[in-house]
Structure formats: structure tokens, C-alpha cells
């Protein structure tokens, strides 16, 4: 376990955080919250008070090069004068291997990232996604005790980022890398993080699995994360095929089985689709309700739909809202995206 204990400096205020062995902890929060600073503290790149413990051993007096970390910076910092293989070889100097061993290791890691064909290329000859993978390969090639990732997918197009997120998760699992991952993208944090820590104004405000954090929010704690709809279930039957049937507002819903009791189910407002017409397709997770409120704010429209005794909050883009063309009091039909439902 990697532990940060009472970390303070110009940006951070008494931060406590544990990263368990082999887990990916996603650090989310608005810009300026101190996420990158916390990474730099773990790396030893900035001054701080408090203590950083690697497996119960304080590393505060160790310079960055002795901390055994891998760091993927937001701007990647691949050395422009070295080709892909040379970038990796330079990262292995601390291992004390001979050249053949190092080359073999570089080859294996490049193969596992499916970039071995690029080994002779220079960084400026690579696409954004390729550079990303090289930076990741360079950071993990010496098997660091802690992998630090600072918004690694922020500068990539949507499709490349989605593909690389899956790739990262796979590699992180395969290599069992203890990872601290900084992002301001909530969807990314939810998709990648085994656990999530929410930072705000230099403090860790919440920590836990996404379900735990949602539940804490329901209890009224402060949160930076978007607020999900929490649906209270009247009953739950495990169907045994990876799905659980629950009762809600007089209808039945199918929810992926997470091995939890399903007293409540959570779904984010942008994972709910509504329409004025009953749409085609299998009648799973459908509902019908009345529009009770419409709130337009910058770049997003929130539509409140009353279903039975519950109110669902639905979010959509202004363009989508225009196309939908609904007014208050109108009846709408909706779908709750099955995979977006989470049992609590």
C-alpha cells in the first residue's frame, strides 16, 4: 500500500490518501483542486510536509529518482532526440541490467502495448495515441512501485481516448500496477477507477467506490461529482443470469448484478432517454411519466419527469431538447440504459 499522510504545502491541506496494492485510484476534481500537485508530492518533485509511505516505509527523504515511480506527464515528455526504444532503454538504467536484457525487456513491453513496430521511430513521427502508449510503456518498463498518470488522455480525440482507456485498464490489471490516476473527466474516473477520490480546494473530500460516493452524496455530503438519480426498489430478485429484477414505481427494471443487495439503484441523469412517442424495441427498463419541470442552464437542459411517486432528473444537450420539443405537463416515454444502472 502507498500512503499519503497529512500532506500539506502551498496547494494541499492535510491530505490523507491510501492507494491499495494493485488498484487504480482515480483522483478527480475541478482544475486547481491540487490533483497534479498531489502526484508531484508522491513523486517527490515538489516540497511538502507530512509523509509519503511506500509499503510502510517513508520515502520523504528520497529524491524522485530513488522513489521507484513511473510518471506519465500530461505533456508526455518523450525525449525528442531518442527513438522509442532508446526512450525505454533510458528508463531502465536504474535496473542494472545488461544491454541485451534491457533490449529484450523493451521488446516485450512494446509488444504488449502493440507498438513494437514503432521502436525505431522518433516521437515527432508518432500519432498522439502512439505517443501516449510509448509514454505509458516507458513509465512501466522498470516496474515501478507506483504509477502516476496525469490526465494522460486529455489531449486525444474521443475514440482514441476510449480505446486507450481500455488498454490502460487491461495493462494495469495484467501488471498489477498500483496506480494513481488524475483526471477531471468523471466518466473516465468511473470507467477506470477501482476507487475514486474527489479533491476540491486542496483537500480530499470523498473517497471510495463510485457507489459509496454516490451513497454518501445521498446522505447530503458535499460532492463535486454529478448527482445520480437514486431509485428506491420495492423488491429485488436475482435472475441468476447476471441480471437482477427490481421493482420501481410500479414497473420492473433489469439491473446488472454487482453482488449487492439492490435496495436502491442509481443512474446518472445523462443516461436516461426520453421521447414523446413510445419507441420500438424490447420493453425493458421503460417508464412513462409527466414532465414536471424544465431548467435550462449553460450548455445543458435538465428535465424533471415524475414517475409514480418519484422524480427522475434527465439531462440533455440544448439541441436534443429542441428536437424533443416537450413542455411542462406533457407525457413522455423513457428508457433507463441497462448498463448505466448501478445497484447500491
Amino acid at each position: 500500500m502507498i500512503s499519503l499522510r497529512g500532506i500539506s504545502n502551498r496547494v494541499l491541506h492535510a491530505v490523507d490518501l491510501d492507494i491499495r496494492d494493485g488498484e487504480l485510484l482515480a483522483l478527480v476534481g475541478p482544475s486547481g483542486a491540487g490533483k497534479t500537485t498531489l502526484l508531484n508530492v508522491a513523486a517527490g518533485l515538489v516540497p511538502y510536509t507530512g509523509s509519503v509511505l511506500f509499503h510502510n516505509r517513508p520515502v520523504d527523504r528520497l529524491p524522485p529518482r530513488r522513489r521507484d515511480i513511473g510518471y506519465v506527464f500530461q505533456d508526455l515528455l518523450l525525449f525528442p532526440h531518442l527513438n522509442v526504444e532508446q526512450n525505454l532503454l533510458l528508463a531502465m538504467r536504474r535496473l542494472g541490467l545488461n544491454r541485451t536484457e534491457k533490449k529484450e525487456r523493451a521488446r516485450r513491453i512494446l509488444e504488449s502495448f502493440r507498438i513494437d513496430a514503432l521502436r525505431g521511430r522518433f516521437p515527432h513521427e508518432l500519432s498522439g495515441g502512439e505517443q501516449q502508449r510509448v509514454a505509458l510503456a516507458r513509465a512501466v518498463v522498470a516496474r515501478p512501485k507506483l504509477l502516476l498518470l496525469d490526465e494522460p488522455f486529455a489531449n486525444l480525440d474521443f475514440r482514441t481516448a476510449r480505446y486507450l482507456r481500455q488498454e490502460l485498464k487491461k495493462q494495469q490489471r495484467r501488471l498489477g500496477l498500483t496506480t494513481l490516476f488524475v483526471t477531471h473527466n468523471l466518466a473516465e474516473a468511473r470507467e477506470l477507477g477501482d476507487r475514486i477520490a474527489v479533491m476540491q480546494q486542496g483537500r480530499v473530500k470523498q473517497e471510495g467506490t463510485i457507489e459509496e460516493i454516490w451513497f454518501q452524496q445521498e446522505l447530503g455530503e458535499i460532492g463535486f461529482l454529478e448527482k445520480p438519480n437514486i431509485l428506491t426498489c420495492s423488491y429485488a430478485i436475482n435472475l441468476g443470469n447476471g441480471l437482477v429484477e427490481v421493482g420501481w414505481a410500479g414497473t420492473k427494471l433489469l439491473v446488472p448484478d454487482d453482488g449487492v443487495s439492490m435496495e436502491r439503484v442509481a443512474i446518472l441523469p445523462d443516461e436516461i432517454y426520453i421521447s414523446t412517442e413510445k419507441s420500438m424495441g424490447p420493453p425493458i427498463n421503460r417508464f412513462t411519466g409527466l414532465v414536471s419541470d424544465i431548467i435550462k442552464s449553460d450548455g445543458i437542459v435538465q428535465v424533471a419527469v415524475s414517475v409514480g411517486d418519484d422524480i427522475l432528473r434527465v439531462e440533455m444537450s440544448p439541441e436534443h431538447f429542441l428536437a424533443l420539443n416537450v413542455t411542462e405537463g406533457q407525457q413522455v416515454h423513457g428508457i433507463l440504459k441497462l448498463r448505466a444502472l448501478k445497484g447500491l
Partner: protein
Amino acid sequence: MLRYIIWIPLVVVTLLVCSVLAALLFHVSPGDVWQALGSSETRFALRLSLATSVAAVALSLCLGVPSGYVLARRRFPAQALLDTLLDLPLVMTPLVAGIGILFLFGRDWLGGTLAELGVRLVFTPLGAVLAQTFIAVPIVIRSSRAAFEGVNRRFELAGQTLGLSAPEIFVRITLPLAWQGILTGAILAWARALGEFGATLMVAGATRFKTATLPVSVYLNISSGELGAAIACAWILLALGFVLLLAVKLLGRSRRTASASGGGGMLS
């Protein structure tokens, strides 16, 4: 019509430079120059010039590159003052610089001590090296400082997180990223050292077959009316200078195309 007027000054300057070169070339008969080119005196001057200037550039690199690094990466009191002081040899009349070196290394001061150690600088080729270094080292300091300042320091941070020590980072990362800027400075310094006259004259003197570098040789031959020999030396100097300046230009071009992701800094 108006759009062509802007070209006139450029044409004037070009004509002026070409005319001066032509005057140098055609003032004496090509036969005389050709004969002088092969003379032992010219060949000696060429060899001495090359040897002393190469030594001066090597010395300038040894002193100037680390100095440039410190000026680029460390902050200390009176830095601007020191910076200006180190630039002074660039604008100093070389003759004056030479007089200063002569006084410092003459009998009374440092020269006496060095003489006891068996090192003689004044009126020897070693003195020419010293004089040229004095003039060339500020160029190397300036260019390497700019080159180091142009290296993104975050690359050095990345090196730290990859487990590299400070010397490893300097040799493996910083220096390779700065080397084109440093090389440009070294070539300019070399060109300057080759053409150096005033300081060399004062420190090393003007003795044929002993301390006469190419520029000193031009001076000696003009004084004694041997125009052919003087022009021959002048032409060698011009040819070397042209080649070196061209090298700097080509280097700058290759850098512009290659530095897609943050290479060395340009010489201002």
C-alpha cells in the same frame, strides 16, 4: 513600381560587398596570388591559424558550455551584471583586449609566475590561443546559454522520475537537446578566432614563421608591400569564413525542420 523600391537597399548592400570582394581579387594579378598561395610562408600561416583557432575553440567550449549552463539554470545575485561583463570582450576593441592580456601575462603579474613554471605565453603561439579564446569564449557562452534555456526543463523532471542522476540527465538529455545551438555557437566562435587580429598581434606578436597567423600575415605582407601574399592570405580567410557561415545557416535550417518537439534554443 513601388513594390520594387523596397529592394533597392538590398541591391546596394549586395553590390557593395561584391565590389569589395572583387577589388580584393583583381587588385593584383591572379598569377601572383596563385604563386603566394603555394609559398611556405602562407602555408605556415594557414597551419598556425587552424591549429591556434581549433585550440581556442576547444578551450572556449570547455569553459563556455558549463558557464552557459550555470547562467541559464542558476539564479544568483548580480547575475545581470556578470552577464554584461562576460559580453564585454564581444564589443571590446581587440587591440585593447590584447594590451590587457599582455599586461596580465607580462613580466610583472601572472607572466612571472608562469615563467617560473616554464610556461611562456607572450610572443608565442600559445599567446595566440589565449588571445583568440578571450575573444571567442563569450560567443560560446551566449549561444550555449540560449541553447540550454531553450531546453524544456520538464524533460529533466521526466529524467528524474525515470531514475536518472543529475550527471546522467545532463549528458543523456540536456546536452543532446542543446547541442545544435552549442555547435552553432562553436562555429561562429571558430570563425571569429580565425579572423582575430588585434589581440593576437599584441599578445603573440608578428614574427614570420613563428606567430604569424593568417590575419597577421596579411598585415605583415601589406606592410612590406607584398600585395600578392597578403591577398592570398585574405582569400583563404574569406573562403574559410564563408564555409563556416554557410555551415551555420544549414545547421539552422536542419534544426527548424527537425525540432518538431522542443529541441535546442535558437541563437538570438
